[in-house]
């Protein structure tokens, strides 16, 4: 994979040297290049966390907003200008913790955006607290007796909410990741990729261990029942691939409005005519 693409910039990274976040960045940059997109067409959106710093290291437009709030910002951007490829890069704390309500409802709403969650099962930037995907029993800063909550199953959640594209990738399988990202970007509607991203600063298991545990799935991703089974099966929690891809994509958010008014972008609309305003107020 190319380490220099037209999506490279030279903003120095704040990530730890060797962090797999760098690999995700590379896969995304290469994927975008292979899709023959230009930086101008791309808008990255993120919240706060290590994952959420990614937009700074990729040449493109970006909005790096508040912790947990990437999805509504991204939805707003896409609604205003559907020509932009809007990609969210977020972490498990950002997306499933603080941003849980937006995750839930954005899945229902189906904007045409790509959602990449760097899932390291930890709050890395704030120095090692449990996240919603931290396994039970792990001892973390605020859990001296071990985590007691059931971990979130975000993939199953996405599936039962009707998400059209649901995938699990690993930052350590960068070729595969790149291909899935490309497919996700091309998918019309919300495309969601949960990316296993071992943090090398706060987590014990080495990258090698994770690499050994993961395997590639080989089911038919159009089979919803299979997909749900995989997402719910603890034995398949390291299975990588497109878990589900609905071959009949549903209408995306905003489509109704845009079609109704034969519009391409909200951003080009003129202000209301004074006479219309006058008539409406008087008619009221």
């Amino acid at each position: 994979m190319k380490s220099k693409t037209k999506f490279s910039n030279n903003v120095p990274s704040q990530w730890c040297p060797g962090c797999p976040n760098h690999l995700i960045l590379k896969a995304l940059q290469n994927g975008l290049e292979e899709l023959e997109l230009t930086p101008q067409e791309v808008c990255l959106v993120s919240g706060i966390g290590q994952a959420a710093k990614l937009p700074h290291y990729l040449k493109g437009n970006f909005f790096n907003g508040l912790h947990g709030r990437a999805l509504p910002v991204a939805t707003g951007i896409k609604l205003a200008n559907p020509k932009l490829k809007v990609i969210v890069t977020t972490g498990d704390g950002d997306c499933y913790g603080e941003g849980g309500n937006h995750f839930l409802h954005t899945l229902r709403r189906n904007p045409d955006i790509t959602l990449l969650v760097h899932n390291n099962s930890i709050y890395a930037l704030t120095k090692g607290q449990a996240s919603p995907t931290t396994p039970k029993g792990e001892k973390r800063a605020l859990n001296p007796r071990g985590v007691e909550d059931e971990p979130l199953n975000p993939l199953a959640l996405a599936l039962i909410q009707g998400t059209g594209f649901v995938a699990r990738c690993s930052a350590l399988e960068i070729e595969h990741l790149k291909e899935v990202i490309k497919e996700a970007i091309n998918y019309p509607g919300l495309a969601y990729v949960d990316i296993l991203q071992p943090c090398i600063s706060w987590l014990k298991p080495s990258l090698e261990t994770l690499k050994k545990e993961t395997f590639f799935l080989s089911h038919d991703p159009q089979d919803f029942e299979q997909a749900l089974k995989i997402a719910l099966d603890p034995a398949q929690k390291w299975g990588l691939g497109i878990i589900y891809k609905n071959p009949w994509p549903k209408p995306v958010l905003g489509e109704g409005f845009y079609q109704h008014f034969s519009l391409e972008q909200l951003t080009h609309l003129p202000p209301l005519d004074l006479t219309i305003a006058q008539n409406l107020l008087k008619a009221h």
Partner: protein
Amino acid sequence: MKELTISLVGSAGEGLDSIGSLFSTVLAEHKYALFSWKEYESRVRGGFNSYHLKISSQPQNYPREQSDLLLALNPEAQDKYTSLLKPSGLLIGPKENSRFQSLVLSFKDLAKKELGNSLYANAIALGFLTGILKLKLELLLEALQKKFATKSLAIINNNLEGARLGYGQALDSSLNLTLPPSGEHNYFFTTGHPATALGAARAGCHFMAAYPMTPSTGLITYLSQKQEELKVFTLQAEDEIAAINLALGASFAGVRSMTATSGGGFALMVESISLAGMTETPVVIVLAQRPGPATGLPTRTAQGDLLFAIFAGHGEFPKVVFAPSDPEELYLKTIKAFNLAYKYQLPAIILTDQFLADSNFSYWDFNWEGETPQFFRANPSEFKEYKRYQFTPSGISPRLCPGQSVHLVGADSDEHDEWGHITEELDKVAKPMLEKRLNKLKELQKEIAPPLEVDIADSKYIFISFGSTKESVLAAQKHLRTKGEKVGVIHFSELWPLPSYSFPQNALLITVENNATAQLAKLLNLGYSLNLKHSILKYNGLPLTPEEIGRKFDEIQNQI
């Protein structure tokens, strides 16, 4: 007689609103100016609601404390609201009452008896009102026909029949009520939200996201219902945090955007207001106030969020806060809010309240051209290298949008450099970037209109007010002047940054506020180093009336 006031009282679900609005149409056709306001409980059916109409030949857009006519739809409501009637007033309702000139009449019983369904009580009441004021029945019948046009013939006919019946009852009664002379204009009426909505659309707004919350919901409802004309994309969000972030995303991408909510929802937006400040993403937030704290009195009115709104948001950044006084100002200040938000790239807050949201104001001349939409997007071809947060003397950096040109646009909630990238350079980048944002205040402050001054020169007492209390305060002042009291008014509709202004030195300054802690007085002390000690405050959830202001003014006079 200069005005006539009518109170319609009943319960939720009995149709007070539709009686009020249909009757307003009839009065409009007769060239009357009208003001109406209402108060209601937070429930869908039952409880006690009232709807108040003031009829005059010239617009007099403020509430009165008592009415000339009270029309009650049920006996409990009649009991509860009888105190609203003037001693000389006329009482129409299902119960006897010997203290007033009255007619015992149950519109519901009559409707059931004569038309087989108590639902037609409203038509009868409308007919009665039309009759007792000697207005033209045909105009009412036309209005009814229009309103029920899509309904079955039976329904239409029963409504018309009911109206005639009520009209007849009124004529048959020996009761008499005199209307003021009709006016010279075909007045039109509007509540607050449509004016705000049209101001927004006029300013180029094409995106609104919100989460329902009384009394703000009417704004997004209007924009949604008028989508055909306005082409504003409306989105009901999962919560208020999503709502403002949706608006910020859309605004960043290049469409003028807004949101609206009430105090509790505004509280949830506060972090994102700070985000708008940091990313310099323009957005307009309408805060329709109701009494707090917490859920408070959800359907009532207050001006209790003033200081909260002004200091909303962690960290330090410029924002602009308006407090329009009536629908005309809601229209104008909304345009100005968009203009300033997009010129200075910051959040603009418009304070309104349940009283402004639900009251009908009359107009015949409306200042449609007092504000015009202005656009400030930079021209991409001007830049060789584009920097979203370029340092400039004014603090305003040229604004481009993503996808608009080859220039890339980045926004960051962290402290950032000129390109929008996270910075840890404290003295070379972070500090000047903060100063850049605060610098905008200098020019911004010059754009803020000074307060309206009325009869300041010779005043011994000056009322200072803001927002929706304006017409009541002016009416009280006028009345006090007729009594020989040298009273003036200073009224603010633009509140932050505080405009440069010198207060008169020799008058006693009295703030008049719809809250309990004299927040305007506190704000003016803070901004103008005043030492305001007197306030006329009302905080029971109802709007201020000129009568009350007058009484409380007397109390203050007696104290000092």
